[in-house]
């Protein structure tokens, strides 16, 4: 498929070994780093397309590494976290991570996240339109058509959908969505956001009680899943 280079940062050698083997077999080039410092060196020295970064590392915490990488690079970063560390996930997203995968993960899930992140990456092109057989979202012309019918969105709903679609495939935190829609003074009003997301789902989802496109990321925020690509289920 591609020969994208992926930097795997994890202090556990067995995990690096598995990743190298599994990801190489899917055509990726793997570069390894054992800790944050090594990772930063590799980011400067190597040609990379994506970084997989463990959140729990001795010495330099993954969040900190993420922040430092962000200071010098716009490379997509996928964080490896553990369950029930929702606060860490939010912190990781705030620190500039694009996505996270919960340990232990199935390789298919990781591959899907890698593909999604790489697809977004080239030139950081912002998607201004989504055209599938089910929906047609054109943000430049402000036209939203679902199943052949034009849908009217309020300005706020429109902004919310635009922020989600711009980051399609990525989890977007509550805070970020609130600030995109309501402005920089907001960030805590998750209840209002939830109400608006529900309204939006009623307008664009075929089954609003069972959303396919606007997925809830419990505790974190929401994720827009492109219609043609169904996300793999979230393990616990």
């Amino acid at each position, binding site marked *: 498929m591609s020969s994208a280079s992926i930097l795997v940062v994890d202090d*556990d050698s*067995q*995990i690096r*070994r*598995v*990743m190298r*083997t*599994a990801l190489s*077999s899917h055509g990726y080039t793997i570069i390894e780093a054992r800790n944050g410092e090594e990772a930063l060196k590799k980011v400067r020295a190597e040609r990379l397309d994506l970084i997989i970064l463990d959140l*729990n590392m001795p010495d330099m915490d993954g969040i900190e590494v993420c922040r430092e990488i962000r200071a010098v690079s716009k490379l997509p970063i996928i964080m*490896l976290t*553990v*369950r*029930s560390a*929702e606060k860490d996930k939010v912190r990781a997203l705030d620190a500039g991570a694009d996505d996270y995968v919960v*340990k*232990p*993960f*199935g*390789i*298919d899930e*990781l591959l899907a996240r890698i593909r999604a992140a790489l697809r977004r990456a080239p030139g950081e092109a912002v998607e201004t339109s989504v055209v599938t057989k089910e929906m047609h979202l054109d943000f430049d012309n402000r036209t939203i058509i679902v199943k052949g019918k034009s849908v009217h969105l309020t300005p706020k709903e429109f902004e919310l959908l635009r922020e989600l679609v711009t980051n399609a495939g990525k989890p977007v935190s509550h805070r970020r969505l609130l600030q995109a829609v309501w402005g920089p003074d907001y960030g805590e009003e*998750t*209840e*209002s956001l*939830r*109400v608006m997301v529900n309204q939006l789902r009623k307008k664009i989802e075929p089954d609003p*009680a*069972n959303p396919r496109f606007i997925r*809830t990321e*419990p*505790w974190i925020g929401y994720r827009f899943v492109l219609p043609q690509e169904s996300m793999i*289920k*979230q*393990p*616990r």
Partner: protein
Amino acid sequence: MSRRFILRVLPFVASLIPIVIIVFLYRSVLGVNQTTVALTLLLAILVISTIWGLAVAIFTSVVAMLAFNFFFLPPVGTFTIADPQNWVALVAFLATSLIASQLSTRVRREAEESKRRRREVERLYVFSQQLLVSGNVITLLNAIPNHIVETFGVGAAALYLDFKDKFYHSGAADHFSREEMRRATLGEKPLLDQTRSLSFVPVHMGRRPLGSLAISGPLLSRETLEALGTLIAIAFERARAVEELGKTEAAREGERLKSALLDSVTHDFRTPLTSIKASVTSLLSSQDQMKPEQHELLTVIDEECDRLNQLVGDAAEMAQLDAGEFELDLQATPINAIVSAALEYLKAALGSRPIRVNLSDDLPLVRADAGRARDVLVRLIENANAYTPAGRPITISAEVKGAFLTIYVADQGPGIDEMELGLIFDKFYRGRNQRYLVQGTGMGLPIAKAIVEAHGGALGVTSQLGQGSVFSFTLPIASPRVDSR
């Protein structure tokens, strides 16, 4: 004895000296009139009475009157009281000695009293300092009687504690009647027994009797005794509070340590699990042809890996809940959002299981941590799913009961034996008949219970053998002021 006698007699003898000097001076050296002599004697009596008190003063007055009569009043050299002047002198002398001695005695007594008070206050202060040093109740109780003896210089002291029915003595010996000390506990005021020179002090904290204190030897003032009682009560309560605090602190510290340990164990378990899971799923998804039995075995590894991970996660969560190391992010949330989140989460696990959701649209919002509340529901539905034969439905419903919303998860499983009903919320308990049939960690229900209780709600179950079980939990209804812009 003779020494005391001498000490008592000495002032009387000494008081004669000024009289003798005056008589000698006026008789032999200076020739003065009777008035001068009388005034001088009066002065001497005044001085003597202020120094030695009434008894000596009266004695001196009589001696002075006799001397005045004998040596100065005509007829000189006899004790004739012919002249009324003589009576006047005697009365004047006596009155002076009486008034002067009275006044000086009072002043002296007051001075002494205030000195004694000051000393007692100083001693109380020293005593209170000693009480503060000890933080351990037993050490404190054993030390109190000795501190009292040392500080106040009394003969012996003993402390009686009512609720323990125990006695603590100064020194080794047991001087006091236990019955009297028990009785003193109930008293309101200190009891002073002058004849036996014993005092009993009730030790009360507020109006609650703790015990009593007995002191023998020199009697202390009533105020000091009362202060002693109060000081001991406060010191005792303080030591007890410090000890209690230490105990709960230690217990909490223990839970924290356990939680930290589990955290690190969890991490150490998950790291190899991650490698295994990634490897096995990688093999399973590989394009290469593999024999059905190979695929089957790899699937077993994959599933067991998930199960082990679940177990580790549950153990960590239980420890976290036990240690109280979690925060609830309480927000007004509609129950159907929680229900649909739970069902979405369980979509794969439920498969084709029919789920009936009966939630009316007018249910109020609940005040809950949406993620945790979802977990509760997930665990109850998982539980129902595990114990109910395939194809039978699980029903979810809710109703308002007072300030709470009760959520029900009803299954058509085998039901739970009455004997087991109380046990299923215990950690690691697994249904007796299901133990070997159903996979689980035995921690799902205890975790759900802990989360519900942290919300101020309750988790319960009713069951009928052969009919099924209904698990229910309550969540507080959010106050209606919450808006929904």
